[in-house]
Every structure is written in C-alpha cells, then in structure tokens.
C-alpha cells in the first residue's frame, strides 16, 4: 500500500503536534517503524490498526511511557523530548489508557490528583482537590462524585475519572486509547458527545479504535498503522469502510464472511432453572434455562457483567449452582467437578485466557498436551517427551499456532496465538459440547476470523456450541439461535432468524425484547 498524500486541508491552523520518523523497537521486533503524524487543534484524529499494529506504543512514546528509539516530537513546531508522563502532562499532553490506570481503593479526587496532589507541606489538601474535581466535572458534563471510591464505580465512570485526570492538567492534546471498547452503546453515545465538546473547545483529540463505525461517527481525519508502519493518512471523508478495512488488514476482504446456519440435531446440553451466586454471595443468575443441540451454535449475548461469566463457570463445573440442573447428553453434571464435566465431553474456551486458559510459564507443548494427560498420546505409564512434542507439533500446525517452537513459553505468545493454542487443546479432542466465552476479545481481524471458522467447523462436525459474548456483531453473524441475557435473566430469544444488530442492541439495553 502506498501512503497517499494528505489533501491540503483548507483553513486549518498549523498542527499543534508533529511526530516525525518515530521508531520503537522491543528486542528484535519493531513495534513502531518510522511513523509520521500531525495533529491539529480542534480536530478528532482517529488512529486505526490491528492489534499489535503499534498504536498504543506510538502513543506511549508521545506520552513518555516509553522512549522512542528514533524520531522527534514537535510541539507547536518546537522539538520537545517527553521523558516521563509527568513531563507530558506539563507539556499539555494527556492520555487515557487502553487499560485504566486507577487505584480502586482511593477516591475519585485522590485518583485524579494522584502524583500531583495539592498539598501544604507533606499533607494533602483533600477539600481543594475534591472541589476542583467537582468543578471540572460539571464544566465538561462528566458526572462523578469526587469523594466516591473508584472501586465502586462503573467502567464508564472510571473512564470519566481517567479523562478528568487529563483535564485537571488542562491538556491541549488528549489521547484516548480504545476508549469505547469498554462502553455500552448508550455510554458510547454520551461519550462521543463529550469528545466532540473537547474538540469544540479547541482540544486536539487522538482516538484509537477498532470500530470503523465509531470512527466514521466522530473522527475528522484518520491514520492507519499496520505492523508499526503508517499505511494511510486521510480525511475521513475520502475513504470507505471497505478501504479502511483493507488498509488495516493489508488485504481486501469483506469485514466478515457470511456464515451458513447449522442443522440442529438432538439436544446435548441442557440447563434448567439455574441460579447462581457470585464471589460475594450475591445472586447474579436467576432461574436460567437453555438448551443446545448437536450441530447448533447458541449465542448468549449480553453486556459484560450480567451473569454470563458465572453462567459459563457453572456449566463447566467451576462454580456450584445454588439451584437448577445441568445435563450433558442426559448425564446430570449439576455441581460436578470440572474434571467430571470434561469427561462428560465438554470443551471450554475460557474468558480469562491468560489466567485460566493457559499456564504462561509452561511451554506451548505442555499447555497443549495438558488436555491429553488422561490419554496415552503423551506416553504410557510414564510420560514420553517425544510423543508429547509430536502431538503438540501436529496440533500447532493444525490450529496455526505461531511460536518459535513448541518449547517457547506460552506467555511470550501474542494474544491471538495464545487463543489459538487454547483452541488447539480444547477443540482437537472433538468435544460434543463447546462452551466459549468472549473467544475473540482483543484479537485482530485475521485471528478473529480463524477462531469463528473453527467454532463453525466444530458445529458442522456435529458439536454443540454455546457462544457467550458481548459482541453483537459476533453473535449475530455466527449463532443459529441468539439468547439475550440481562441482569442474570434470559430476556429474549431469536430462534427463527438472525436478528439485526439494532434489534438485539435495544433488547440488551432495555433488558426486554
């Protein structure tokens, strides 16, 4: 792809910020490769790219979290070197991170002023801090209570705290790294209004996102990174979604391939009146019933935190139900141990890939063969390394797990490859039931596509797939039946047709169809 010239933007004041030839290497791999970028006051500038394309890294250089290996940062045309986040804030550069950087047990005000507390001597002026926060909050229409503990805030509110933190330093350039990833559609809408407000007040906003729709909604211009290089730099008006997708992935392919619907057979997984409590003993799933047939993908769709996690844990034996019944192929597995559930023929692709799905300090071989310990494919009475490694080599090939070798530590795998490794372990034994939660979270388009294909393949091979996800697009495209879960209840079911995103979106939010 060639980097097309920027159309001379009319009546635009000179850029407040220029990045010239920024390079950042991590060991051997170059995360950011001679990237130029210019941001103007009052514009909303979208930064697109696959996972690992280098978006965050580039912005981290700007924000002083990492030091670029080459290149210069010019502010109002003057070269500056941003040695630390502190320095960045002094220069008027603020950043809201992809992963929030808040301290749960501290109050909103304490978080906003963390590191730069207003103080007399060693003592913090709590009142001053809280008053300032309150003022900023209603000035920018961000509602939060300064004295509330961050722990008790919703994700949206936490994000507002992050933004306030930047605003408290009255920044001129605000970087938002995948801000909407964690927001509900409604929250997203409100959020964009706020962002437009910023631009109107002359702030330069950099918005990182994976969602083309959103970008189109708010952005004035867009820059696309691929494999650390800048591949496009456009006014949003001049490109179509298809172009962007192509630029991002580097190939011209429809954003998602249409998936055939399956042909359901006999019911294999059956959940009756399931009731569950969460860690704190609060009932979070109430009397849920569902059934999944062989050769069918049932999508359970809901905004994160509506009981899906617990539901999955219960079905896979990780959490004991307080009421209800679960049967797999007629075998009652209610309250059975995860081992028993597996033995009954259930594969599980967990939501918490890193914490549950794999042992980061184990080699890929060990991780994959861990699913085969009960077979003789890893050796007889005693384990055999040769047998094990040949097995895992086969599966790594089959599931396209890219690693330097089977002996590479799993934690060094990229997110997508890690997920593929999990698939290799879970799907290769052809379980009759596959329970997967957020299987493509944080994956790029290619990896996402791969994972979805595998699920469909399993279905077509007669497996029953329970797909729990909060991504409307994913569920509506892959699932044969869609259940909407809200506040721990199934509030809607779409059996006969694939619902439109608008339909389910409303159901999810309103908690009824």
């Amino acid at each position, binding site marked *: 792809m060639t980097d097309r010239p920027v159309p001379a933007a009319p009546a635009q004041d000179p850029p407040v910020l220029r990045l010239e030839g920024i390079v950042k290497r991590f060991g051997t791999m170059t995360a950011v490769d001679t990237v130029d970028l210019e941001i103007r006051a009052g514009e909303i500038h979208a930064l697109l790219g696959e996972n690992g394309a280098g978006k965050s890294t580039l912005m981290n250089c700007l924000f002083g979290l990492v030091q670029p290996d080459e290149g210069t940062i010019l502010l109002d045309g003057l070269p500056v070197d941003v040695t630390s986040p502190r320095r960045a804030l002094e220069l008027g550069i603020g950043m809201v991170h992809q992963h929030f*950087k808040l301290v749960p*047990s*501290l109050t909103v005000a304490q978080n906003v002023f963390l*590191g730069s507390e207003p103080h007399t001597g060693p003592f*913090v002026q709590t009142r001053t801090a809280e008053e300032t926060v309150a003022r900023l909050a209603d000035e920018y229409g961000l509602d939060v209570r300064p004295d509330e503990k961050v722990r008790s805030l919703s994700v949206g509110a936490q994000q507002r705290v992050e933004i306030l*933190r930047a605003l408290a330093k009255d920044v001129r350039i605000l970087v938002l790294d995948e801000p909407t990833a964690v927001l509900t559609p409604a929250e997203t809408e409100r959020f964009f209004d706020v962002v437009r407000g910023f631009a109107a007040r002359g702030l330069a906003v950099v918005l990182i996102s994976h969602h083309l729709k959103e970008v189109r909604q708010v952005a004035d211009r867009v820059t696309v990174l691929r494999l650390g290089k800048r591949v496009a730099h456009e006014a949003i008006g001049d490109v179509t979604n298809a172009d962007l997708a192509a630029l991002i992935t580097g190939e011209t392919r429809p954003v998602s391939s249409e998936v055939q619907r399956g042909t359901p057979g006999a019911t294999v997984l059956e959940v009756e009146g399931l009731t569950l409590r969460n*860690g704190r003993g609060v009932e979070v799933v109430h009397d849920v019933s569902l059934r999944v047939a062989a050769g069918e993908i049932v999508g359970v769709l809901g905004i994160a935190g509506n009981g899906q996690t617990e539901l999955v844990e219960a079905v896979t034996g990780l959490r004991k139900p307080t009421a209800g019944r679960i049967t797999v192929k007629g075998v009652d597995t209610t309250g059975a141990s995860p081992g028993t559930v597996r033995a009954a023929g259930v594969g599980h692709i967990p939501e*918490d890939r890193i914490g*549950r799905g794999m042992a980061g*300090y184990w080699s890929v071989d060990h991780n994959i063969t861990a699913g085969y310990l009960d077979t003789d494919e890893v050796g007889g009475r005693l384990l055999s390394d040769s047998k094990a490694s040949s097995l895992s080599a086969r599966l790594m090939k089959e599931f396209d797990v890219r690693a330097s070798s089977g002996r590479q530590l799993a934690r060094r795998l990229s997110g997508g490859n890690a997920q593929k490794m999990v698939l290799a372990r879970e799907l290769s034994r052809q379980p009759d039931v596959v329970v997967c939660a957020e299987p493509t979270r944080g994956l790029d388009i290619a990896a996402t596509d791969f994972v979805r294909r595998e699920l469909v393949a399993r279905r077509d091979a007669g497996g029953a797939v329970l797909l729990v996800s909060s991504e409307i697009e994913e569920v509506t495209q892959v699932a044969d039946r869609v259940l909407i879960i809200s506040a721990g209840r199934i509030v809607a079911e779409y059996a006969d047709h694939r619902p439109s995103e608008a339909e389910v979106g409303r159901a999810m939010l309103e908690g009824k169809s």
Partner: protein
Amino acid sequence: MNATADFLAILLTSLVPILAAAVGGMFAERARASNIALDGCMLVAALAAIVAGAKSGNPWIGVLVAVAAGAAYSAILAFAAFFLRCDLIIAGIAANLLATGVTLLVVQNVLDSPGTYSPTGVDLVPRVPLGPLADIPVLGRALDRQSALLYVTVVLAVVAAIVLNRTRFGVHVKAVGESDEAALAVGIKPILVRTVTILISGACAGVGGAYLSTSSVASFNSQLTGGLGFIAFAAVIFGRATPWGTVLASLLFAAATSLSIRLQGTDLGIQQLVHALPYVATVVALSVQAIGLTRRDRYDVSETTYVPAIIPKG
C-alpha cells in the same frame, strides 16, 4: 488490681519490640513489599545499639545507630529484591539467616566475646518514672518506670497513622500497593516508594532491636529476638496493614506473651508449653481471620492471579 497493673506492665514491655517493628512493616506491606526480614533487621540493630552504646557511652546514640543499622540492613533486602530481582519473600528469609550469621561473626571475631556480648558499665536507655502520677490506680503502676522507648514506639505508631492517611507519601504508598501501572502512569516510581517503605520498616525494627539489647540488660546474643520479628510481621498481616489494626494485633500478641509469663506463676507443671503461647496465639489469630474472610467470599472461584515464587527451569 495490682495483678492487672503488673500484667499490663509486662504487656507493655513485651509490646515495644513487636509494635515498633510492626509499625514499619505496615508501610512495606501496604506498598506490597512484604518485609519478612524484620527479625533480621531487629537482630542487626540490637547488636549495633549495644556496640554503639558501649563505645559512645550514650544509649541514645546507640538507639540512633540501631535505627540506622536497621534501615541499612533492610536496604540489603531492597537491593536483593529490586536490583538482584529476587522474590521478596525468599530474599527476606535469606536476609534473616544472613543476620544470624553476620551478628555471630561480628560478636565472635570483631568483638572477641564469644557467644554472648555483654559489656559491663553500659548505660541503658532511661526509664521514665511517673512520680506522683504513679498513684493513678491501674495505669499508674503499669506505666511507672517503663522504658523511654515505649513512648518512642507509641509516637511512632501515631505518626505512622497520620503519614499513611493524611500525607502524599501515604497516598503514593497505597497507590503503589494496589497498582504499579496506575502509579507509573502519574510518574510515581513504585520501586522508589517500595524501597523507602522497606527502609522505614528496617528503621522501625531498629527501635525494637535497640530495646531488646539496651533497655533492660546490656547484653546481645544472636538468638535474642526469639522470633519477635516474625510475630511483628504476623501482627502486620493480622492488622491488615492498617495502622490501628496493626496496633491492636501487636497488643494482642504482647498480651499473649505477658499471659504466658503470668501463667508460669500459677504452677500448671507445663511451663515449657506455656512458653509457646505467643506463637500459638499468632497462628490462631491468623487462622481465625483467614477463615472469616473465606466465609465472606466463600462463593469465590479459585484465585486466577496466582504465580508461584519459584519454578524449576527445564
């Protein structure tokens, strides 16, 4: 009446080393830099105190040197953890073992007084007579002629509470304790904060050490802590690394010590078992708390953020 007073008196004398060390340990723990080497710091400090006291002839110089020594020794821990990048707990265990060895070496080869070092004619840290106040019913008798270090320790505890809850440093400690990322993002250096808290914990343990070797008897022996440092660490944990929690926990364990001494008076014929009381108390306290917590989130599924301190490498 007097019995109670005497019980309290012993409780307070046993409290000093535990509380002093615990108060410091609290900071470290709160910054997620558990200092399990409190015992070692105490030991080294105790030796420093008595030597400095003996050479300078002024017990307070002894105390100051002890504080310095405690901090310096804990610096080894910080060095190991943040420069050598050892696991903090293991480094702590090592530091304790090292302390025994080093003190023994110094006593035997530098001070040429094998085994126990008990120089004669060293002035001890003064005791504080209450004068007329001593006649206040229970408290008067309990507090009369307690070591000045008791008051130092109490002040330490109060200051600690204020620092942790009211100052910027306190906020930063809490922040680091909960999320390095959050701290880094606002330019707080976690390693720096942790190092400081570890130094603080060492310094406080130093006060405890000085108490052990120069408050009642000018005598040092590489066994003299008898695990007090670990009890202090337990107090931190039992106190949830909160100021008042730590104080209460320390009081509890001091009470156990005092009780074991009292019980020996009533001849049960099991003196040696009674002697174990403080240690038993520690275990019981920790268990009760842990059980309580598990009760509270008993529906929790297993810890997903678990990584062991050591794994054998291929």
